């Protein structure tokens, strides 16, 4: 129930190849996150799986059956859109019941499933409202409700949280994760926010220009990024990438060190620089250190209360064994 396999799938819009041949297997019950910069083809890939776009070549299998030519409704997948795509003229109840109505379920069965979903999503009080009378988070839940009543083989989410404010986003993130734990259904989740990817995923798929750069668990991607792109993309703030003589010392073209793996000191260390802009987050402080001669600016993490000021001299020491080395092609050594 919910194993999805892509076999040499490609997608062209006219002459432009948005997805070059791509292979991917999503196991039953997995929470997979597609992450990548804007325009890299995440939505396109999701829509190919959903059947809203036709593949240019290749095959898609769902539960071992070839679904390449199967229309969207018959694939047994449910999608939650970025704009929610609720039906504005229908009440919340009717919105959630719509897929059931289309499937020809009896009125009783519809009511039962709708109230079940409403309970799970805390929507019972809003069932008779129109979508226009709901807040963003509530609309999001209605969209999820409409997806879960169908009991699909897999859920597809396309940046479902990008229209919500930061606090709500954190809340909904947890709710979706909980939903996944409870339903144990395959979920494919698209985002360009790597924090969402790190916190929710069982497996992250990093995409760039339609290519899969790396597939792995959040920790794998964090600890051993396969190339400089993944290294720079996963982790917040970004990994510091250093080229030139310093990299050559480590027999690499590029070396990378995460801000949290650099020790700082006002008196001694491997690299010397000046404190530039600093960002105080309370628990952490991030310094942008300039004038090291290594890169434009090196980001380092310090504890919450540090008494260094703008322009002070600072010494940086990379933690032993936390250095990432990349060759001339950007691949991990």
């Amino acid at each position, binding site marked *: 129930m919910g194993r999805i396999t892509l076999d040499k799938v490609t997608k062209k819009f006219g002459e432009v190849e948005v997805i070059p041949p791509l292979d991917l297997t999503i196991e039953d019950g997995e929470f997979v996150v597609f992450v990548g910069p804007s325009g890299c083809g995440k939505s396109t890939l999701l829509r190919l799986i*959903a*059947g*809203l776009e036709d593949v240019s070549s290749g095959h898609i299998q769902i539960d071992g059956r070839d679904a390449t030519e199967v*229309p*969207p*409704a018959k694939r047994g*997948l*449910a*999608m939650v*859109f*970025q*704009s929610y*795509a*609720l*039906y*504005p*003229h*229908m009440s919340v109840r009717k919105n959630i019941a*719509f*897929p059931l109505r*289309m*499937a020809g379920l009896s009125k009783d069965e519809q009511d039962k499933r709708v109230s079940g979903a409403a309970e799970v999503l805390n929507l019972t009080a809003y069932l008779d409202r129109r979508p226009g009378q709901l807040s963003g988070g509530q609309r999001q839940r209605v969209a999820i409700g*409409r997806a879960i009543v*169908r009991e699909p083989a897999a859920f597809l989410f396309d940046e479902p949280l990008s229209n919500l404010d930061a606090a709500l986003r954190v809340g909904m993130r947890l709710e979706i994760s909980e939903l996944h734990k409870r339903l144990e259904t395959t979920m494919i989740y698209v985002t360009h926010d790597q924090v969402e990817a790190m916190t929710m995923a069982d497996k992250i798929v990093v995409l760039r220009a339609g290519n899969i750069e790396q597939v792995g668990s959040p920790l794998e991607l964090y600890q051993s990024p396969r190339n400089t792109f993944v290294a720079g993309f996963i982790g917040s703030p970004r990994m510091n990438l250093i080229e030139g003589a310093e990299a050559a010392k480590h027999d690499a073209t590029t070396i990378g060190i995460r801000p949290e793996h650099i020790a700082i000191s006002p008196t001694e260390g491997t690299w010397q620089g000046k404190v530039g802009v600093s960002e105080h987050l309370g628990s952490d402080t991030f310094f942008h250190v300039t004038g090291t001669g290594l890169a434009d600016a090196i980001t380092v993490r310090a504890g919450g209360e540090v008494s260094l000021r703008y322009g002070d001299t600072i010494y940086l020491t990379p933690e032993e064994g936390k250095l990432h080395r990349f060759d001339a092609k950007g691949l991990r050594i």
Partner: protein
Amino acid sequence: MATQHSRAAARLMMAPAVILLLGWMLVPLILTLYFSFKRYLPLRGDSLGKGLDWVGFQNYARFVTSSSFWPSIQVTLIIVGGVLVVTVLLGTLLAVLLDQPMWGTGIVRILVISPFFVMPTVSGLVWKNMFMDSTNGLFAHLWRAFGAAPVDWVSQQSLFSIILIVSWEWLPFATLILLTAIQSLDSEQLEAAEMDGAPALKRFWFIVIPHLSRAITIVILIQTIFLLSIFAEIYVTTAGAFGTKTLTYLIFQRVLESQNVGLGSAGGVYAIILANIVAIFLMRIVGKNLDA
């Protein structure tokens, strides 16, 4: 949303337009009311200069008791209703078709809009002489090609002919408004419905039609206002004969053919009442779409 201050400013700035519009409406309205209570037969020597006789409600009584009155109301409603049905149905269909990506969309759209630029008199004459004429009309040729006897549309199918002509004129308006409405439909809604298992026809019925309901309301309201007063199409085709005498046409005949201004004015007041009844009726049925 607006503050007291900005509301006052808005009223002040709107005042000239409101006053102009009021004057525009009120002067003819008051004159019509005034004449409707007077005996005013210019051919018998009545004139404003000599003063007009007050006749009370005599004109009103005569207008409704005339044998042409109720048929004219019926004809008016049939024409308005017929044209509304045709334009809304065909307009929706055309809008859906024009919304599809296809070759030459630009040209097709201009072609669809063009009837709107033809004056009613001209289109009436063109239809009557080029299409509906029983000897030389295109329809007559077509009928003969299939071995059927040509129909003299204007006399034998007079109401149908007029509905056809007026619908042709108003179809572009309906199509255009409905097309813009369709284009404003969020495509993700249709995709969501597709994934929810709704086939094309059900998507049309459950998603597109409700989305269009507001635009359809507007089309119906605006067209009704204009259709209640169509005149030229009747004047140049049947000239009110063959059961095509609408209320507007009846008033025209009373004022200009019988030269009875008082009687015609009373008819004008009835027309205003009819328009209001129709408008209230329509608002009741469809108006709730507007405040949703």
